[in-house]
């Protein structure tokens, strides 16, 4: 530990604490993976995508989506097609297994990024992983799939980017970084945050990428904008494409146009601001001040209050870390922990800006994932700085207990929500014919009909519903 209380960078090899942290991560993957395997491939958002991705060749799919109007997401479709082909008809096993594998890699990267070497490092891992799973921005990455959750793919790309950037300098990291940003940006728009990770890490002194490598990142991101706006003329989401959260409720497209059509800037500022608040305080959610409204009307839920409390406490801990390290930062002396927190701050800002036209929990998932890392860093820093007095130890213990309890509560709520969502999805599959009719979708070929039948049978017969949970205690975990 240096004079400021920051842990010096433990560059040594793995210790027993390292393996303990990975072991705990494996337990977390098992727990979440069990929930994920209880969820069938979804009907809405997934069936059409699978059917569409199964048409023609992979190259045709990529090219046609490269030139598609409205979105620039060819690799989103390419990935679905690759897993579809690999599955050879075992859709549930492959698509749901893919989701579990993504979570496993994400957790492994989380532990790797924290670089656990000592007991204080290991002690922060359960809290960090509880925050990773429990934060509201993460829920959409596990509750839904299209049938591959694109947002989860971007989380992996962002963590992968941080891992590349924080490692020792190697030429191949530049190459891998370039490939990663191209893949992420052409998967979904928030993939551009991968570039932010690389640049922020470099500015914070990480030299895994060379100067040329970082310049390449900037060039690739600039190239994306040129391609999107000047070559393909795709543009960006308009103000009135969808209804949006504002204040204490939703405002529909007509009202959006009436209130902000002439000057959308205040609405965009609102979205960016509320996105940041949501990340740091869990309030508002999707632009709506849900918890505030419920408290004002006396209809509050325990989970709402716990979420806001845990986030506030966590944010204070991160802020305290930044405050304590400000001198070193000004002198441009960064430890690995500093770099992780700096990346979080940069991704949080950029992610909030991406939400300018439309804010939603899951769009903030990259910033949420780095929030969990920053919280773990701040917690181990806090543990290392605990005052030796009895009072200091007692206060620190209470703070840690409250923080961990709050985030653990949210992580359990995420598991319960996942189980509930699995029941809802199965219910949708029962009425698949009605759904197809409502969507005006008719499976055109025998192959399409076979896909529908297979997914239906997977959801209802082969992987039947797990018994719903019952009890008054469930109310504690309701939003």
């Amino acid at each position, binding site marked *: 530990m240096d004079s400021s209380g920051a842990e010096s960078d433990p560059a040594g090899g793995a210790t027993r604490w390292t393996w303990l942290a990975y072991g705990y991560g494996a337990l977390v993957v098992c727990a979440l993976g069990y929930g994920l395997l209880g969820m069938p491939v979804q009907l809405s958002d997934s069936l059409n995508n699978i059917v569409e991705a199964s048409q023609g060749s992979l190259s045709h799919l990529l090219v046609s989506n490269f030139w598609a109007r409205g979105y620039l997401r060819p690799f989103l479709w390419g990935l679905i097609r690759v897993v579809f082909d690999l599955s050879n008809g075992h859709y549930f096993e492959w698509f749901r297994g893919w989701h579990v594998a993504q979570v496993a890699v994400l957790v492994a990267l989380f532990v790797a990024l924290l670089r656990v070497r000592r007991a204080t490092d290991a002690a922060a891992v*359960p809290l960090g992983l509880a925050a990773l799973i429990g934060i509201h921005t993460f829920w959409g990455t596990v509750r839904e799939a299209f049938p591959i959750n694109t947002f989860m793919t971007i989380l992996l790309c962002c963590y992968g980017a941080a891992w590349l950037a924080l490692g020792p300098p190697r030429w191949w990291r530049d190459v891998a970084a370039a490939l990663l940003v191209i893949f992420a940006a052409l998967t979904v728009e928030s993939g551009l945050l991968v570039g932010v990770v690389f640049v922020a890490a470099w500015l914070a002194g990480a030299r895994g990428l060379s100067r040329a490598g970082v310049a390449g990142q900037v060039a690739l991101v600039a190239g994306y904008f040129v391609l999107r706006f000047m070559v393909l003329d795709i543009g960006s989401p308009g103000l009135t494409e969808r209804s949006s959260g504002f204040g204490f409720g939703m405002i529909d497209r007509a009202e959006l146009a009436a209130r902000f059509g002439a000057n959308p800037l205040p609405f965009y500022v609102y979205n960016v601001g509320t996105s940041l608040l949501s990340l740091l305080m869990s309030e508002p959610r999707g632009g709506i001040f849900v918890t505030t409204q419920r408290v004002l009307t006396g209809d509050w839920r325990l989970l709402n209050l716990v979420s806001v409390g845990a986030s506030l406490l966590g944010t204070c801990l991160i802020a305290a870390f930044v405050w304590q390290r400000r001198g070193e930062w000004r002198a441009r002396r960064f430890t690995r922990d500093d770099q992780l927190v700096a990346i979080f701050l940069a991704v949080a800002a950029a992610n909030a800006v991406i939400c300018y036209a439309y804010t939603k929990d899951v769009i903030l998932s990259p910033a949420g994932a780095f929030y969990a890392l920053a919280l773990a860093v701040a917690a181990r820093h806090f543990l290392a700085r605990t005052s030796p007095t009895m009072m200091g130890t007692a206060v620190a213990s209470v703070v840690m207990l409250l923080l961990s309890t709050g985030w653990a509560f949210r992580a359990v709520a995420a598991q319960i929500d996942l189980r509930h969502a699995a029941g809802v999805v199965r219910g949708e599959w029962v009425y698949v014919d009605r759904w197809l009719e409502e969507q005006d979708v008719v499976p055109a070929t025998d192959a399409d009909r076979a896909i529908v039948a297979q997914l239906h049978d997977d959801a209802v017969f082969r992987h039947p519903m797990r018994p719903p949970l019952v009890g008054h205690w469930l109310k504690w975990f309701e939003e």
Partner: protein
Amino acid sequence: MSRRAALPGIAVVVPALFATVAVLVFAVRELSGTTPLSNGPMRNVAEAAGAGQSSEVLRLLRDGDDPRRFWPVRPEIISSYVTRPTGLEAAIWGGRNIVELLDQRGFIADDGTRVHLTCLAKDAGKTEVVEYLTASGAPSCETGAAFASVKDRSLQR
């Protein structure tokens, strides 16, 4: 970890660790055949219908359960007064979608059954189900009689 950091360290580890272990223990118990904190698996089509679990209704129909016959239903599924309904009767408490599902599969074949179910839905205050069943005309019902028959049957067990 220094001795001074041990207590806060334990404080930060224990709750999160406990949550993970609790979820894992739950998963292991469920995989071994017991689902804690639940009523367990639905035992027949009437239980599934009464609980509103449409996917389980469909699965149990495929396995051969007949929703027209009487089934034992645990009191915690619908109520302690409805423990021996037919699958169709239980579906009244499961909601409109379940009734519709069974109707579309031809299990509400005769007018007598439809009238009985309509009157039962009225007694149970299930407006949506009543609306669905009376799309082609509402029968006259003696208030409380349909539910009383289901209740009497349950009490006779």
